[in-house]
Structures are given as C-alpha cells and as structure tokens.
C-alpha cells in the first residue's frame, strides 16, 4: 500500500488497514476492560445517596439497545451492497446505520438528563461517577462512529463512489461499529441487568 506496487506488503495475507483496525480494537478491549473493572470494584461497596436502580428505566434502555443492535444489521447490509457494487444502496444503508446510531445517542442524552434531574449527578457518589464515565466513554465511541459513517456517506456522494480496497474504507469502519455494539451488550448487562 505504502510501497511500490511491485513490493510485498501483506505478509500475513490480511489487508493492512484491516489488521491495523484489529490491533486497535484489541487495545479498546483494555480501555473498556479497565473501565468495567473499576465499575465492578465500586459496585459492591457502600456509598451514600441515590443509586442507579432508583432512577433507571430498563424498558427504555432496552429499546435503545435494540436500536443500536439493529444498526449492526444495517452496517452488514451496507457492506453487502458495496460487495455487489451497488453504490446507491450502500449509501442508503450507511445513512440508516448513522441514523440508528444517532437515535441511540439521543436516547443516551435523554437518559442522562433524566437521571441528572432526579439527582443522580456525575459527582453524586462513586457509583454515579463510574456509571457516567463508563457509559459516556461508550457514547463517545458511538458518536465517533456516527461521524465516520456520515463521512463515509459523504465521500460516497463523489463521482467515483466508495470502494472496498482503497480510500476511506467501509470495511474497517464496519469492524469498529460492530465492536462498539458488542461492547454495549456487555455494558448493558453489567450496568443495568446484573
């Protein structure tokens, strides 16, 4: 990729940028791992004041979780459409993925405001702090993902469209997006259900 075309550049046979994304995601596991560990450590301790169980609304969060999971499906459909060189469908599914991601984000913002008004603030107690930092960090990931998706969609508007083997690549953004979804499944379980 970075070398002349007569130069070997995929010793492992995996596309270089995709490999880079896998390595990046492996460090993301450590990021979320540290956050979740902290959350679990403090979860068992006594703390004063309001608890998450006093304010949360599991049906609401379940719905927004479902929305986020569906966005993984639309992401796969976008990828599939691009493999069939259907530029228009690719753009539609990309936009759909971005929209679903935004709905999830909107849900999170609504949820945070709701909690805040009920007195569950960032610095209320150690539990609320870990809650906001953990879910907020995930929300930031979704936000960055949405920016990527919209960027990809915008680039897809150009004449030559998107392609799987060059440029700003759909495949590795899809990897990222699925990863962020999987992390949410873990977070939803750990934070809300356990």
């Amino acid at each position: 990729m970075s070398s002349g075309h007569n130069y070997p550049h995929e010793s492992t046979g995996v596309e270089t940028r995709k490999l880079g994304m896998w390595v990046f995601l492996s460090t993301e596991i450590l990021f979320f791992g540290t956050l979740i560990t902290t959350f679990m450590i403090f979860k068992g301790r006594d703390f004063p004041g309001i608890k998450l169980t006093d304010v949360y609304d599991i049906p609401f969060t379940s719905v927004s979780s479902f929305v986020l999971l569906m966005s993984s499906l639309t992401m796969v459909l976008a990828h599939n459409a691009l493999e069939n060189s259907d530029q228009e469908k690719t753009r539609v599914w990309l936009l759909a993925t971005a929209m679903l991601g935004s709905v999830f984000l909107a849900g999170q913002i609504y949820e945070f405001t709701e909690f805040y008004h009920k007195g569950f603030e960032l610095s209320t107690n150690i539990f609320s702090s870990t809650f906001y930092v953990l879910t907020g960090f995930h929300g930031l990931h979704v936000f960055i993902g949405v920016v990527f998706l919209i960027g990809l969609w915008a680039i897809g508007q150009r004449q030559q469209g998107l392609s799987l083997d060059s440029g700003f690549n759909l495949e590795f953004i899809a990897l990222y997006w699925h990863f962020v979804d999987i992390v949410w499944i873990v977070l939803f379980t750990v934070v809300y259900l356990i």
Partner: protein
Amino acid sequence: MTKIVEPDKQTNIFRRPSSEYGIWSWITTVDHKKIGIMYGYAAFFFLLIGGLEALFLRIQLAQPDNNFLSAAEYNAMFTMHGTTMVFLAIMPISAAFFNYLLPLQIGARDVAFPRLNALSFWIWTFGGIFLYSTFIFGTAGAPEGGYLAEEVGWLGNAPNGGWFGYQPNAGFKYSPGTAMDYWAIGLQILGISSLVSAFNFIVTILNMRTKGMRFMRMPVFTWMTFAVAFLLAFSLPIIAIALFYVTFDRQFGTTFFLTEGGGDPVLWQHLFWLFGHPEVYILILPAFGIVSEILPTFSRKPLFGYPAIVFAGFGIAFIGFGVWAHHMFASAISPVAQAGFGISTMVIAVPTGVKIFNWLGTIWGGKLNLKTPMLFALGFIGMFVIGGLSGVTHSIVPADTQQTDTYYIVAHFHYVLFGGAMFGIFGGLYYWFPKVWGRMYNETLGQIHFWTMLIGFNLTFGPMHWLGLQGQIRRTWVYAEETNLGFWNLIVSIGAFIIALSILIFMANWMYSKRKGEIAPFDPWDARTIEWTIPSPTPVWNFSKAPEVKSLDDFWHAKYGEDEEGRAVRRESADDLLLQLEEEGLNPEEEIILPNPSYFPFVLSSGLPFIGYAVIYKSIPLALIGVVLLLVGAFGWATEPLEEEFNTAEEEE
C-alpha cells in the same frame, strides 16, 4: 536512467506539500527515516532538560541542609525529571530507533501507515510542549498545611506530585494549582502518540516483511520492537483510563481516588503500576534488542541462542503484566498478594537471566572488536546485571518494605534504566551512526565518552545503594548534617556532573562527525542484518528492489562461508558483492512509489493541546479551536489519498 514518479498536483483541492528541503519538508514528511531523526533530536533535547533537572536536584543534595532549591522547587524538579526521562526521553529515543531501523531490518519501503507515523511524532511533540508549558502557564498552588505560595518560585510551577502521581497527594486538595492537570493531560496526549505508533509497528512487522523474512529470521531488534509495541498497546489504555479518572477528580468533582466520596487511592496505584511495570520493559526491551545486534557483530559470532533470546523477550513482556504490585508492598495489599507478587517478581528474573547468559555465550570465544558500540554493549551487560540483582532483592517483601522510598530504590532503577536502557541506546547511536549519516563518528572521542560516562554513572548511582540502606529517604529536599550522609551525597553530585561532561563529549562528537567525519565505508562493521546491504546514508527509497532473505543473518551468510572445521571464511566474492550492492542501491531500476508528504498529521495533532488547555481552564473557545483543528486534520486526511495519481516521468541521470 531512473524512473522517477512525480505526484500530479492538480488532483486535489489543497495543494499537496512538495518541499524536499527546509522546514516544511520536515513538518510534512511521512518518511520513517526523517521521522526517526526528528524523534531522536527532540528526545535528546528533552534528555538534556531532564538531565538539567537532575543536576539541580544533585546541587541541592550536595550538602546537608542546603537551600539551593526550596521544597516546592525540589518537588517540581524530581517530578519533571522522572516524567521527562520516561516519557520524553527514553521512550521517544527508542521510537527513533524503531522508526529508522524497523522498516530497514525487515526490508520494507516504509512503515505500514506512514501518515499515522507522522501523527505519532507530532502528537508526541505537542504533548511534550503542552507538558512543559506548565512552566509558563501552570501554578503549583499552596496546599493547606504545605509550603507557602511565595516559596514556589518559577521552577516550582511544574507538576510536583511525582512521576507516579500518587493519590490523593496529586489530587485537588493537596495539589491545588493547575500543574498536576498539565501532568495528567500531558501524559494522556503522550499516551495517544505511543498507542498510535504501537499499532503502526505491530502491523508493520506483521505485514510489511520482505520476501523470505519469516518470523524466525527477523533480527532481534525487530523482535524486541514487536514485544514493546504489544506492551504499549496493552498497557497504555490502563493508564489512559486512570488519567481520565484523575482529570475527572480534579476538574469535575468526582471521587474516584478520594476516600471522602467512597473512592479508593490504592486503585490508582494498581492502575498506575499495571501500566507502570510493563512501562519498565517498554524502556528496557529496545536496549535489549540493540545490544543483541551489537554483540554478535563485534564478536564476529552468531547470536547465541537466537530463539531463546526472542522467547525470553516475550516471556519478559508477558510476565511483566503480572508483577505490578511489587511497587506497592508498602501499600494496603494483603499478605497473600504480597507473597504472590514476590514470587512473580522472582520468576521474571528467569527470562532476563536467560538473555544475559545468551549474551555472554555470544561473546564467549568471539574475536572481540572493542569499538565504542561494543564497549557500550558490554557496559550495558555489567550495569544491567547490577541493576537486575538489586531488583530481585525487592521480591523479598520484608526487605522491600525496608527499602521502599529510600535511595536504594533510586540506585536500583537508575542501574536498570540508565546503566541498562541508556547505555544500550548510546551503543545503538554509535552503531548506526554511519547508517544514518554516511560518516564515521570519532572513535577516540567515543571511547572517552564511554569511560567518562561509566565512571560518572557508577560514582552517581553506586553510593546511592548504601545511602539508601543507611536510610536516606527519596524525594526529600534536605537531610540533616548529623545523619553523616554528606560525604557520599557529595560524591554522588560530583558523579552527576561527570555524566554531564560525558554527554557534552558525546554531543561534540556527534555534531562534528555528522558533518566532518570520515566517509563511512559501505559495510563499516562487517554487519549481519539487511539494513547494511543498502548505501549509507539510506536512500529515500530504502531498498531499490525488495530484498529476498534466505536465512537469519542473511547478509553475513552472503559474505561468509564455512571451512571444513566450521570456521567462518570470507567468500572471495564478498568484496564484489558489496560493490554491486552499493551500485544497485543507488540506482533503482524499478519505478519507485513513495507515500506523499502531508500537512494533516501536523494539523490534526496541533488540536490536542488546545483541548488540553480547554479542559484545564474550562474554556469553550479554546475547545472549539482544538476541535476545529482536529476536524480539519481528520477530514483532510480522509479525503487525501496516500499516494496521488501518478504521472510517470522519465529522467536522465
């Protein structure tokens, strides 16, 4: 006749940078060699600053009850000395070696992501500037019951909670100024840089190896780079999150590490050392790699036990994640944990010992060529063994409890990180000097540098062992005359100035030889690895065609055969081979496509300090500037192809 490929500048919205000389060529470069050189110089600059801070500390401690520095200034100086040496000197000097050598050692034209590589460098640079801007903008503040604000002085307006930033001392209550915010956010920025380069190096080693460069044919330095990249990738996220918590505690009123709100200061220690101990190996493994290159070359023998050295390196990296709590034996951890971590600390000495014996086996019976790089490599082994042995003593918990926070610890880790890492790095700087500059350094000055540094080093850190055992406490700005510690402290301070002198000799040698040194012969060290099969200084395109590697130490086997008794005999064709390689290396026959320079890594990374200031000063405009720079950088980057559509031009040579 060479085919040169020129980018067509009409295809993009922004004109692409095209300078080949001058400052813009450096700011926009994506060439791993130039980035490596920039890392080297910038890190050396910070090394000098960190050294200056150390000299201040030693002037203060040269006499009992001295008042050269105030307590506040002393705190700031040792904090900045540690932080600078770890994050702004040794790590980036190692990064300089990785950048320059890694692609050459695996026969690649560049790293996997050249622009990300530039991004790592610029983020690191801006992180360093941000951290040091604390001297101008930061304030140390005056904690309740601590020193007074007027005692702080200019020097004291730097982070003062130690490079380890223990909580709650580094929290808002006891460090009320902004200085520790600069520290937390500065390290965060530096961490991003290291993470990005870790991805880059891992992918480069996995994917950019040339024909026949199987894993078990890679030079040991490449292997150690690989191990370090994994250590970075898996340890930095931990400290990143911990630093987030610190910033939240200090800025947004959370209590992650403050007992008042149900938080836990020991959690900080766990998270910090869970990063901090792998960090120790991040600092030392590059030197292991460098020494493993130097010793076989100057002993004229293959590296003894190549697979053992490689696996020991990974063993160290792996076990390195399981020993962190030996930094915390004096903290609140249970006896079972103490015993467990004591044992794992002993265990990690095993792969380290394997390496040392392999190095000794390499030298054993070799024809030693005692040039400067070899001297530094030998010095490295000696000093590192001392540091390693004093390190194993920490696995005995009762002894460690006694030694914690004394100068014994200071002596130990300086033997490892200075006697180890820095000696290895200096060896590497001399060894690859001809590769980078195409000239030879001055051998006499090099040897003088080695001997003054060895003497100065041992005078400085040797006596600290018994100072520590006699009970001199670290991080304390004065000691009383009645303690009778004055004599050895004076010796230590004299030693520190001898080290400074040796560094000056090194700089003089470097500056002079780079311009006026003898022109280096094609293969000055009769080397073994493929970075020496190309001309020096390295041409922009590295290898004019992808080399094919047939064995470990490929270049050596191309030059040497064996006689009936198995002794190495130089082939008659060897000299012709060198001439031919030089000729081919300078005149590529194939079309060469290099990644184009780019403004965007620089633009993108320049946004980060603004975001840092915005967090500290809660300023929306600064945040906006930062975000805009980030977005412009990211957007420009995403829409700019790595290589332009090319017009191929024919040019007469």
